[in-house]
């Protein structure tokens, strides 16, 4: 896909990211420029095509001359900006944030349907999270398996709200939203009704595709559902003998 044409009234600025001189449109964010130039920067809530949420705090970067850190997804570039994306301090913060996510709900990769396809798991590997220092919360959440095509497992949700945003902004259904606050936050369908009863859900599956973890999955993908049925064999074999 060719990049969108630069609007006439947008300036092009130059900046450095990790010492690399780069040019960018003034209306681009730091994370967009990083992605364009293959500068790796971790993120979870950010997804190209969705609005900016700025909540996972994994894409925080240092900007020269600024005391505080900035989320690369929510910060526009500026002329002469000097960005550092991979300092020791940032790496330490990212590790801790990933650890906090792992400890918050039940992220046990070995029994997860998304094992090997999970963005959280991948991030843990790239950020060097080889163990979690904070205690696991051991909270138990319900699953919603009422939808004929899809399933929701709150235990694997990281509250990135990609599902909420894609449903609202792209599908236009706004089936998903958030309820509760703090660690009690949950993504919900309609007014916290079972997903299968939702009158607004179109069954498009966009939420499942954008979910970074195993929280939203297709039905029939869990280990428990992989039941083999060999009942046919004796029946078919006997019929064949009878003939």
């Amino acid at each position: 896909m060719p990049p969108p044409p630069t609007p006439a009234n947008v300036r092009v600025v130059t900046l450095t990211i990790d010492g690399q001189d780069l040019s960018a449109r003034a209306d681009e964010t730091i994370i967009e420029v990083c992605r364009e130039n293959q500068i790796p920067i971790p993120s979870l809530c950010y997804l190209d095509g969705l609005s900016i949420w700025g909540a996972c705090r994994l894409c925080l970067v240092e900007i020269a001359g600024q005391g505080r850190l900035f989320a690369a997804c929510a910060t526009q570039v500026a002329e002469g900006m000097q960005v550092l994306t991979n300092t020791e301090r940032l790496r330490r913060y990212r590790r801790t944030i990933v650890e906090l996510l792992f400890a918050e709900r039940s992220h046990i990769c070995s029994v997860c349907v998304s094992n090997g396809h999970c963005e959280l798991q991948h991030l843990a590997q790239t950020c060097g999270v080889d163990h979690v220092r904070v205690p696991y919360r051991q909270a138990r959440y319900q699953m919603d398996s009422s939808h004929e095509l899809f399933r929701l497992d709150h235990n694997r949700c990281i509250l990135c709200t990609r599902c909420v945003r894609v449903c609202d902004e792209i599908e236009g259904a706004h089936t998903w939203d958030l309820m509760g606050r703090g660690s009690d936050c949950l993504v919900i369908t309609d007014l916290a009704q079972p997903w299968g009863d939702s009158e607004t859900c179109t069954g498009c599956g966009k939420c499942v595709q954008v979910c970074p973890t195993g929280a939203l999955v297709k039905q029939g993908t869990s280990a428990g559902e992989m039941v083999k049925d060999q009942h046919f064999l004796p029946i078919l074999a006997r019929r064949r003998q009878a003939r």
Partner: protein
Amino acid sequence: MNLDDLADKAEEYRNQDPDITHEARVCMAASCQSSGAPEVMAALHRALTAIPPPAPGERQGDVEGDAERDGDSEGDGTMAGAGLAGPADRVTRGHRCKVKGVGCMGLCSAGPLVAVAEKGAELMASTLYREVRPEDAPAILASVAGPPVARLHCPTDQPFFARQQRIVLENAGVIDPDSFKGYVAVGGYAPLVQALTEMTPAEVLREITLSGLRGRGGGGYPTGLKWSTVAKMPGERKFVICNADEGDPGAFMDRAVLESDPHRVLEGMAIAAYAIGAAKGYVYVRAEYPLAVERLTTAIRKAKRAGFLGGKIAETPFSFEVEIRLGAGAFVCGEETALMASIEGNRGQPRPRPPYPAESGLWGCPTLINNVETFANIAPIVRHGGAWFAGIGTEKSKGTKVFALAGTIENTGLIEVPMGTRLRDIITAIGGGIPGGRAFKAVQTGGPSGGCIPAEHLDIPVDYDGLKTLGTIMGSGGMIVMDETADMVDVARYFMEFCMSESCGKCVPCRAGTQQLHALLDKIAKGEARHQDLALLEELCEVVQATSLCGLGQTAPNPVLSTLRFFRDEYEAKLCAP
């Protein structure tokens, strides 16, 4: 209407009841109400009507409330308790007295408070009575013409009152907060008319900038700079928001201002709207403040009827509407971006800044957000000039600050002192020290975003920058005093529990980090923690502080870091094995 017209009105309202010489003012703010002020007020009314009618030739003291004098019979006349003024006035040995409900007089721990004063006299010039009970009413009324009732007397020359300087609270405890005329009579709305008829918006901005006023919500951002930024932003639609979502534990400054002098806040908002070019304002006030909401609603209605809100204010082209929005009990909605999301009808969650509200606020329009106390300072600044205000306080913190004294302190209540007052004066002189002969240990300022100040730093002058050097903040004005029995780990755990349950859940470090911090503090408090837990606690504090999305998370570790700084031995004493 010009200033002279308004001055005539004020004169007229002041002389409305020439026969009345004295007032028995009953504090009808929330704290005195909860200790029995409504009963005291009713008893005073009964006692007043029980006094024999006036001597022949004098006017009959008929049932007459302030509400009716306001020409507002449709509203207040039928609403029980809405009009605070007394229904009767009678002669008491040559003095005519009326009973009047007023706002907060400050010494909340001694409530219900009743002040007997000459009409229009300030609080300091009144005879104040403490812990008044309904049966004391006849004695208090009798004291109008005689000596004070000694057993109830609460001298106003004691340090609690004498060491204060009341600017924001100048009308609190003096005027009836539900009376529009009462506010005009003490010079209210003159600064607004002055700004509209005699000053350009740029001149208003200049005075506010000159005054050196800084945001009273806790941030301390220069108000003049904020106003000028919004004023310079392009755009036809702009908004003014008054942040009255006061939520710090132990803080009740904004509530008291709204309950005691709501018109002053509206006037400040209107002046701000004129200066920045806004036509619409919102007061975002928490629903847990029903009395403040009621008085504010009354004030808006009366100001609108009198032409000080709404279209063509004071017959100028300037129009300004104010609407109230109720907060549904989320602490995070005091954060400006979450507050705006809530006003827009969305989930109250913060968003990354920039863009700041000044550039893109309510519905994407330039928006000015200030705290209640900030707006309450505007009218006096316009009236006396920015230079006058800049003459009060310290070099970088001008004016006065209202504090809510709570905790183990003799005089619990609301005080207003010049910036730069030493903390020791606030706690020992004004606050009256620690009760029960126990020793002072620490004072917590700034609520869950602040920290503790130990005894060795009591001589610090209280201003924005001074408190910052001690690792705490001025905050919105809550001061929780603790004596030697306080357990500082427990204090830290309490505030962390507050932040944990008030975290909106949007960003990971605040949502999951405060929970882990709370669990660690709990472990330490129970004596189950080891040295490595303490190290983890400090590391998590750093991460939550540096990476959280909004102020709630960024400042949530402050009470822990502050108690670790000054009381580390208490933490270490609770660790089990090395």
